[in-house]
């Protein structure tokens, strides 16, 4: 059956299974990805079916995981690495930034680095410190990396397929609080381009641009705004490197107003680049400055404060109102 209703978690699991089946060079690596199936069960059952040589429980050392994945890629493998939580990617940051991202250029194109790094990210699950962060800027700023994040099950399935097929390193951010959200997955459809945006809802008065976990919030905000007679377009960016500026521009040329929403701190968040570039592209179109809603310049707070910290319906609508007030 081509179309199934799946959670994002299951869609990712199916996607990994498909990749393991299709290409013997695909490997899964990470902490607890084997018997346990990962702390979020995204790799559930894969070691059982594909063996310890292809679904590899690694020592507890992120630099080691990414560093050996690079070596495996040099040997012709296509490792799909799982980092257990957003806050634990930093021990691997050196390998990612100085080696993985640069190897292709360093080798004048002779070496390819088909490595996917899956990172469950962002907040909303009431977790302890280091388990709720949104570090996408720290990867999107780095030339040589590609950075994407699906917001729904179909994208989860397909974008992961495409990331694994890509000959470039892809940082694949999974919106962990949406893992259990269900959506239709068409495993036979021709998917959208990995780095293109998608209009998730059409509207005429203002554009909301978001990715990953915030797309749902923006869709809810658009629905709420509709009740007040405001027509909000929602663009699901899907890719943070590259960003589909043409897609955003097309929407903004129509609506003339833009609010970017993400969980990451606003200061130097992906929204800053979008604001800067869209302002440059649409200087005479914009009726209001591009506004941004995001995290604050503070460490991700204790769980009991995360609802206040995270952009929610009210804060998005507040920004919509402020933009429309111009």
């Amino acid at each position, binding site marked *: 059956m081509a179309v199934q209703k799946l959670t994002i978690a299951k869609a990712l699991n199916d996607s990994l299974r498909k990749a393991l089946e299709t290409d013997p060079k695909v490997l899964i690596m990470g902490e607890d990805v*084997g*018997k346990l199936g990962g702390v979020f069960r995204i790799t559930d059952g894969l070691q059982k079916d594909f063996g310890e040589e292809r679904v590899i429980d690694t*020592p*507890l050392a992120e630099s080691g995981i990414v560093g050996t994945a690079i070596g495996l890629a040099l040997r012709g493998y296509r490792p799909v690495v799982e980092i257990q939580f957003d806050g634990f990617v930093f021990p691997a940051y050196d390998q990612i930034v100085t080696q993985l991202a640069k190897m292709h250029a360093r080798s004048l194109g002779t070496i390819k680095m088909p490595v996917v790094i899956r990172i469950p990210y962002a907040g909303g699950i009431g977790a*302890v*410190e280091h388990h709720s962060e949104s570090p996408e800027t720290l990867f999107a700023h780095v030339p040589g990396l590609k950075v994407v994040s699906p917001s729904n099950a179909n994208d989860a399935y397909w974008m992961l397929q495409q990331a694994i097929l890509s000959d470039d390193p892809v940082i694949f951010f999974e919106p962990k609080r949406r893992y259990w959200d269900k959506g239709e997955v068409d495993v036979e459809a021709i998917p959208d381009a990995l780095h293109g945006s998608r209009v998730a809802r059409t509207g005429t008065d203002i554009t909301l641009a978001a990715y990953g976990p915030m797309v749902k919030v923006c869709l809810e905000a658009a629905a709420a705004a509709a009740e007040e007679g405001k027509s909000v377009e929602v663009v699901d960016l899907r890719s943070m490197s590259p960003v589909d500026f043409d897609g955003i521009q097309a929407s903004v040329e129509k609506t003339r107003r833009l609010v970017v929403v993400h969980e990451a701190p606003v200061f130097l968040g992906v929204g800053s680049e979008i604001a800067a570039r869209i302002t440059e592209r649409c200087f005479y179109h914009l009726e209001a400055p591009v506004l941004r809603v995001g995290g604050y310049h*503070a460490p991700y707070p204790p769980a009991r404060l995360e609802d206040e910290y995270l952009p929610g319906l009210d*804060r998005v609508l507040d920004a919509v109102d402020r933009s429309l007030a111009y």
Partner: protein
Amino acid sequence: MTVESTAARKPRRSSGAKRPAGAASAAKAGKAAAAATAQTHVAEPQFVQLLTPEGDRVEVADNPDIAEFAPFVADITTDDLRGLYRDMVMTRRFDGEATALQRQGELGLWASLLGQEAAQIGSGRALRDDDYVFPTYREHGVAWCRGVDPTNLLGMFRGVNHGGWDPTTNNFHLYTIVIGSQTLHATGYAMGVAKDGADSAVIAYFGDGASSQGDVAEAFTFSAVYNSPVVFFCQNNQWAISEPTERQMRVPLYQRAQGFGFPGVRVDGNDVLACLAVTRWALERARRGEGPTLVEAFTYRMGAHTTSDDPTKYRRDEETAAWEAKDPILRLKAHLVATGGADEAYFQELEAESEILGKRVREVVRSMPDPDTMAIFENVYADGHALVDEERAQFAAYLASFEGGE
């Protein structure tokens, strides 16, 4: 000029024969490798033990290898033993209470120390007040020894803060969640102790899984090079979430120290007396200016990794059952009973006391207030930051816009 470990001498794939060719046999090779790995798991390890699982004292005459350590508990009286017992019982009670509170939704998460009481109380009681402790996220028993109010540990698991105690009050640092990081902090702190000319010591806790992190190796290197007064105390509880120690190491961890130029000792981590003795010994080395020591406390995580974990996915009940027979509390109880060190009245009194602790923990947690919203912006910087000020003001105005409005 050549150093070879026994394990390394054993060929890990079938020796002589070529490796299976082609990817098809990869799964087979994987199984073989796994089997070979399992062999290295030391079922009956050699370690410093002063109290058997049955509660009998091991004498130096029984095992000359403990001669270096036994003197370090020669001063321990029956009263002291009761104290250690009480610490373990209270800690376990607190821990059980926290687990229950998590199930009731009062805590978001709990990392239980069940089974590791002896390692924590034994090492924790070896410390002096002026020593400094760098824990992981599981050292509730050590916190207890340091005099940290146990309810203070719960804030971060309830989600009201990221660390609810002043580390300087009890020389007990905040819990560190990023695996291995704190071993470097401990090393730096110990470098400072030496610079100050103090004879305090520092202890860094970490797990078997953590031993794989580069930071831990760097901590070994720095402490060796600067000869810092630090004890690296690894609780090898056999598991890093779902991964057995074979996924982290090929030979027993305590051996790693030698290659960095300092001693490593394996101790029965379920024997509170042995943990006390070995930690005292290591701390004394540090105080005397002899530098770092690695202590591997061989113990077991009786429960789940945390309340979010489901160990049935990856480990067998028989294993857990086997370790139950080595329970650190039962063993000391057996000893106290057998030697007449404590009677039924004592145990009942302790039961009552732990009941009171449990009640207090429940009450304190349930009444723990949520932090003020504006706390998001507090303590980001010590000296202030214009952006934080701006965002704080904007947020306050935003919140105010709802008041009386609509």
